[in-house]
């Protein structure tokens, strides 16, 4: 279990469609350290899922162009020939999805779907794969794993289904797990259970986890680091506590402020005005500028991702100015 980490370098994902190209991810660079859990946050359309799918090579190559590189340890994940990509998926890199209702095949038993991964990658026969699958089902906290092995997805509750999906994804102990909104479709108490499970897998199995979410509360609860994306660009990177306590990019700050809080019912929700620019337009300068309260003339120039300290990077002119203000304090001030 060497210290393998994921290094994403200048990743771009462009969808070709009638009426032009859509850049879903623009020149994104970030790392997921070995055995670390990294939250990839942003609004819908910010390129989070496109990034995750690119790491597993799940985009349709006939309509998608992928650029840059993503290395996990010594292995390049992007641009692999189909067979090599199939070998990697499920064995080195795993992925789980948002809705366990639709991501499990309704016609196959839980057991078939978990042991399938094992049989593909480890060539085990049915009986041995079954034993392993039941172990994995127990590992993800599914009660009565041997009984549930024979059940179909519709016979399980949402939380158990999500556990079953995680079991199918980690059955061959992948070293990197991409979790795309794994708790969004679940209710709150189940959310906490699934997040705890992911955290446990990360720590105990030495799995690196890229957790894609729009929920900063989830990130604060389980992630070591945060990568904040806006309109396909990475705008802020840093350790979770630092980023959440003192966000340095106005977008991350506004994401924090627009979080509904259980203790603040009388407060109006602070929504970010405007919307993520369409991926087909190719604007210049800071992409968040039209929606930013602190926007100035200088923001019309292209902004680079600037390193402030080790592991702390921000794409905003104000972050590098001497008279910097804490957006976190400004935005959340009563």
């Amino acid at each position: 279990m060497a210290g393998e980490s994921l290094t994403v370098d200048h990743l771009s994902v462009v969808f070709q469609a009638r009426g032009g190209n859509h850049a879903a991810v623009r020149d994104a660079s970030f790392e997921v350290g070995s055995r670390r859990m990294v939250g990839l946050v942003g609004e819908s359309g910010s390129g989070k899922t496109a990034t995750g799918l690119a790491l597993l090579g799940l985009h349709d190559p006939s309509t998608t162009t992928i650029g840059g590189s993503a290395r996990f340890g010594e292995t390049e994940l992007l641009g692999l020939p189909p067979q090599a990509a199939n070998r990697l998926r499920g064995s080195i890199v795993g992925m789980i999805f948002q809705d366990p209702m639709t991501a499990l095949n309704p016609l196959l038993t839980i057991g078939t779907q978990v042991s399938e991964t094992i049989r593909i990658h480890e060539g085990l026969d049915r009986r041995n794969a079954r034993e392993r699958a039941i172990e994995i089902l127990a590992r993800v906290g599914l009660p009565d794993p041997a009984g549930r092995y024979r059940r179909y997805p519709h016979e399980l509750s949402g939380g158990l289904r999500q556990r079953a999906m995680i079991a199918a994804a980690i059955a061959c102990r992948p070293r990197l797990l991409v979790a795309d909104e794994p708790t969004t479709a679940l209710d709150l108490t189940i959310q906490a259970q699934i997040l705890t499970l992911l955290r446990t897998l990360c720590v105990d199995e030495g799995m690196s986890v890229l957790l894609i979410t729009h929920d900063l509360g989830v990130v604060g609860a389980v992630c070591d680091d945060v990568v904040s994306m806006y309109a396909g660009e990475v705008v802020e990177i840093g350790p979770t506590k630092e980023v959440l306590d003192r966000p340095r990019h106005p977008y991350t700050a506004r994401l924090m402020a627009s979080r509904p809080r259980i203790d603040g019912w009388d407060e109006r929700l602070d929504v970010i005005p405007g919307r993520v620019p369409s991926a087909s337009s190719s604007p210049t300068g800071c992409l968040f500028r039209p929606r930013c309260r602190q926007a100035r003339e200088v923001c019309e120039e292209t902004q680079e991702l600037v390193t402030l300290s080790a592991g702390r990077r921000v794409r905003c002119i104000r972050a590098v100015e001497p008279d910097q203000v804490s957006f976190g304090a400004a935005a959340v001030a009563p």
Partner: protein
Amino acid sequence: MSTATSTAPPQARPPTGSDDHSGATTRRRAARVLRTAALRGGAFVATLVLATFVAFWLIQLVPGDPATAIAGENATPQRLAEIRAQLGLDEPLLVQYGSWALGALQGDFGTSLYSDLSVTSLLAQRLPVTLSLVACSLTLAIVVGVAAGVIGAVRANRATGKVVTGAATLGIAIPNFWLGLVLVTVFALWNPWFPATGFSRSGDGALEFLRFAVLPTIALGAAGVAEVARQLRGALLEVFTADYIRMARAKGVSGTALLVRHALRNASVPVVTVLGLLINRLVGGTVVVEVVFAIPGMGTLVVDAVKQRDYPVIQAVVLVMAVIVLIANAIVEILYRRIDPRIRSS
């Protein structure tokens, strides 16, 4: 000692308790199965009664009757009445139907009004011919239709896929009698590769059977091929975008396993519906195709019977066709349950 005696009874009890419990569940399940079977059986019989009665009634509404056909145009009214009485046609409709149904229940479908052959022996001659034709056409529709549907979906954006899809759309629009005539003209008259008419007799051998069966099978089954292909292609294209396909790919599933285990299984549900309807249409379609190819099957039998008002024969054919359709529907139902566990458990 005291602890041992106190723990013993609870240890002994659970097995008997669970036995009772599982016995009760088994009985309940058996009762439910019986009730379902009784309901299904009742519906089956009711459908047959309704179909045969309506046929009985409709035929007699048609002007002209067997007595005229037998005695000729110039027969005296007395002679006609005599024949009618002989055939039982002077009795009320319900009584006639009742005596027919009683006979049918005992396997006696009466005698043809013209050939003096028992209807049962006519059916024994004709039914295998029609059934083999329907079976061949259904096989053609499944084998070629599934292959074309898969190609149309997998290569949806390429030339092959588009050609297959275009051909399927065309195939649905072509009427079977027209296709039959074209096939006869091209492959029997211009190029004498296949016989234009007739059908092999039993004992002629497989090759001879195929020689006679090829053209009518294509004429009858082409629309089915197109229908299955179109339906499967549409279902597959939808399934390809499903989350569980992406999940399967994320696990490393690819190629045949992805297509067969994950995509085709899910896409087969709407196709099974189409197959059920297709069997009904094939049974109906044999009437036309058998006439075009002069095949001595149920289709030609019923056409002649209708022309001659041969009531017993018409009735028997209607009954047999209704039974075939009902059996096809039952098979479709069973297939649904086999494919989809959600239907099984509801």
